[in-house]
């Protein structure tokens, strides 16, 4: 066994010993109230839920809009796949906070919570009397995060923002796409996912501060600004040269070589920046002659030099198979990889071994295979415990466990329409057609 493998096996043993379900969870005891819909807000809560936070999600009568957004308009067992992807391990309550009685109940929850997250239009919570001003009166240790396209104040506050608008207002498509072609939107709702992640970082940072002082706080996060923050050297470049960063396809304008190349049987990404790595690549190509001039990485970065070198590499890969280039990279110490698609990732032994793709049996929907959030942590790994749920699925459990309500009190709230469950005539709010009326409900909390 070589050195690298004895190390990786040692790391693996550290994880194997600790990652049994039911073991430690890093965020156990952190209670999050999610007043969110779509992807942005729910993803922020999802990241914390997979590391053990107790997330209680509140939905209005119609339900989260993602119940109606699913690829090819395909519903699986009544479930929208678009809803599933950012909603794991959550407790589902049907209660609209605009209802005055619901508002008072929500404040009871707030007393017992650590975090409230909303991604409604800025000011909506305030209209219901539930902005941080009111929430901190009942719980001074509360962390409340609001996120929207342009935040709670400023000339554009309140403007509609979707993921694709946050991308385009933040400048991402302007720098994404092939040279001399149009701008390209991310293949996924990237501005939602990365801003949800940034929100989770902000919330955890605030919780870490609260550990020292007991003080909560209000956080006003802007989605489009987050996209701006992630565009690395775009702004320094504009400030220095007065120019827009151009689109360059898969070529990296700041690292050379770094690009995607055509092979006989597909594409391969290659990068080699240090002298040592570049020398390795040159040896693999049988082009040690290039070393003399291009030893120093800075010599490879001027536009003409970069194009010259990338073209040489392109000629080399063209007649090879992807796998051959990857092997050469292993041997010569530069970087090369195929493009991994959904199918390859789904079947990857590597991702399964690492818990990056997890298999679980959901009480309501059955067998599931999904990606779980990083990083892998040896004491407190992320775990997917259950999938999304029909509207109001956990009403009874949550009201009993968190607020100590009696069954009668819960029936009363249902009668008044303060809390509600799925509407049988709207399939995407409902359990699977063959649901037995019990599976997945907690605390024996069957209705009636």
């Amino acid at each position: 066994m070589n050195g690298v493998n004895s190390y990786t096996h040692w790391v693996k043993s550290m994880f194997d010993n600790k990652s049994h379900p039911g073991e430690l969870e890093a965020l156990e005891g952190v209670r999050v109230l999610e007043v969110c819909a779509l992807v942005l807000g729910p993803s922020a809560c999802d990241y914390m839920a997979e590391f053990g936070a107790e997330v209680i999600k509140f939905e209005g009568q119609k339900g989260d809009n993602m119940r109606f957004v699913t690829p090819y308009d395909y519903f699986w067992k009544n479930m929208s796949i678009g809803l599933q992807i950012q909603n794991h391990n959550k407790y589902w309550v049907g209660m609209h906070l605009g209802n005055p009685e619901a508002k008072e109940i929500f404040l009871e929850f707030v007393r017992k919570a650590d975090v409230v997250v909303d991604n409604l239009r800025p000011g909506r919570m305030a209209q219901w009397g539930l902005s941080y001003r009111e929430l901190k009166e009942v719980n001074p240790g509360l962390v409340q995060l609001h996120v929207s396209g342009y935040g709670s104040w400023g000339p554009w506050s309140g403007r509609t923002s979707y993921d694709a608008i946050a991308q385009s207002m933040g400048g991402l498509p302007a720098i994404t796409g092939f040279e001399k072609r149009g701008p390209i939107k991310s293949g996924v709702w990237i501005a939602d996912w990365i801003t949800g992640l940034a929100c989770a970082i902000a919330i955890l940072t605030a919780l870490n501060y609260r550990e020292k002082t007991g003080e909560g706080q209000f956080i006003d996060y802007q989605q489009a600004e987050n996209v701006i923050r992630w565009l690395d050297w775009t702004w320094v470049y504009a400030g220095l040269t007065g120019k827009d960063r151009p689109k360059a396809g898969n070529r990296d304008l700041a690292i050379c070589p770094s690009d995607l190349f055509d092979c006989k049987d597909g594409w391969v990404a290659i990068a080699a920046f240090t002298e040592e790595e570049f020398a390795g690549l040159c040896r693999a190509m049988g082009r040690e002659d290039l070393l003399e001039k291009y030893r120093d990485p800075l010599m490879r970065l001027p536009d003409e030099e970069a194009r010259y070198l990338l073209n040489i590499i392109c000629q080399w890969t063209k007649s090879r198979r992807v796998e051959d280039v990857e092997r050469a990279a292993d041997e010569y110490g530069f970087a090369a990889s195929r493009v991994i698609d959904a199918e390859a990732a789904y079947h990857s032994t590597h991702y399964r071994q690492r818990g990056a793709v997890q298999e679980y049996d959901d009480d309501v929907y059955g067998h599931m295979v999904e990606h779980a959030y990083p990083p892998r942590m040896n004491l407190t790994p992320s775990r997917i415990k259950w999938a999304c749920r029909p509207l109001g699925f956990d009403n009874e459990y949550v009201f009993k466990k968190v607020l100590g309500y009696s069954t009668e009190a819960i029936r009363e709230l249902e009668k008044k329409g303060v809390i509600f469950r799925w509407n049988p005539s709207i399939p995407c709010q409902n359990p699977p057609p063959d649901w037995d009326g019990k599976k997945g409900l907690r605390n024996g909390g069957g209705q009636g």
Partner: protein
Amino acid sequence: MTDRRIAGVTVDPEYARWAFEQTRPQDVRKKPEALDGLVVLDMSYGNFAGLFASSWLAEAGAKVIRIEPPQGDIARKMSPYGIMVKDTGLAYLAEGRNKFHITLNIKSEKGRDLLRRLVEKADVLIETFRPGYLQELGMGYGQLSETNPRLIYCAIYTYGQYGVEAELHGSQPGYDIIDQARGVIMSVTGEPELDPEVPSEYKKPLKHGNWMGWYAGGAWAAFGINVALLFRNRTGRGQFLDCSPPEGLMCMSNYIMQYYHIKKEMMPRAGNYDYAVFPYTYERCKDGYVFIGAYADPSWQGLCEIMDRPDLAETFPTPKERLTPANQPTIQHEIEKFTVRFTSDELLNMVDEYNARPDRKGVVVMGRLESPREILQREHWKERDTFIRVQDPYYGETLIQNSTLKSMSRTPGRVKWLCHPVGADNETVYREILGLRTTELRKLERDKVV
């Protein structure tokens, strides 16, 4: 009276005013910092995932010690076209923020000794070497956690620290393009597979223009470190974090893997379309591009009315027809025939007018595609201090993006200084943290340890 500079078009101007008071940019420096007192060693090398991770912590007040080899981190040379400002490239200038930049030769025994002493005082260590490299030098997690069990050790690497691919490719360096290629999202990003008007040489996977692999990896690391800090506070236990940037992208790849699980079918690269919401796309116009969102039936009918194309509403009446991959290029191009006749401003006005009509069918959403220079001119970003110009005594005036944690009401994130040259903080760090005397430090310099 509402001041539009503060209230914008919000539903509750009074709330906007209150939120402004809570997060006013002018007050940031008067407030405390969330992670004050936390010591972070950032040993990343040639890797902006590590640098972005430590930026989150540095913006929140942690003392981040950036450890570079004596000749400097090669990440300083990763700069567009090779443009350098003195010893440093443009990307590093943006992520050097608030950090103490020291040098240390970990290949020498004395250097390793200094590192061990630093680790004793540290809460967090970030590294981006190939798996096992630090352990070979006697400074892996196994060794360091013995002297400091509270240490949170975060290793960032493309293939992770274990698993079959880590064993296979553990000799390779990590790069953004590789992280993106392995992160699944790139396989569905790019020009649309099924559009006959796209030349075949463009029908291939496309990376995001920025270092999305590195930045996602770095943000996941910062997230994990914050999670581990909370856990440590309760239990006193540090732990080992294995952060693989491609996994950080894969878990953001929308519904494609779940769809594969259920149907055992792949989804083709959609280009600017979307298979769950459409129209939800970028369209060419006279002076650039616009975003159009009109995916619910009433919105779609509204858009067709604006374009005066009742035939389209009839041919593609429900999401079923609009979300069919084969139909999407047609719909895209039919909309484009309309939008290319107008400028983005004309289109935006048209949509605003339509949305204000009492007899509108549904709300159509339209947005602009902004260039970096346009973004830099916008009042909103000026009011919110999204960009700052730092007057640096060494690098000169430099424009960078501000901390996005600045709108935390109690402990706003901030940028205190830009970047420092290689080894600029050796004096401060080695004397203050390790208590070295000047003569000792000079000797280390002579021995090329620092």
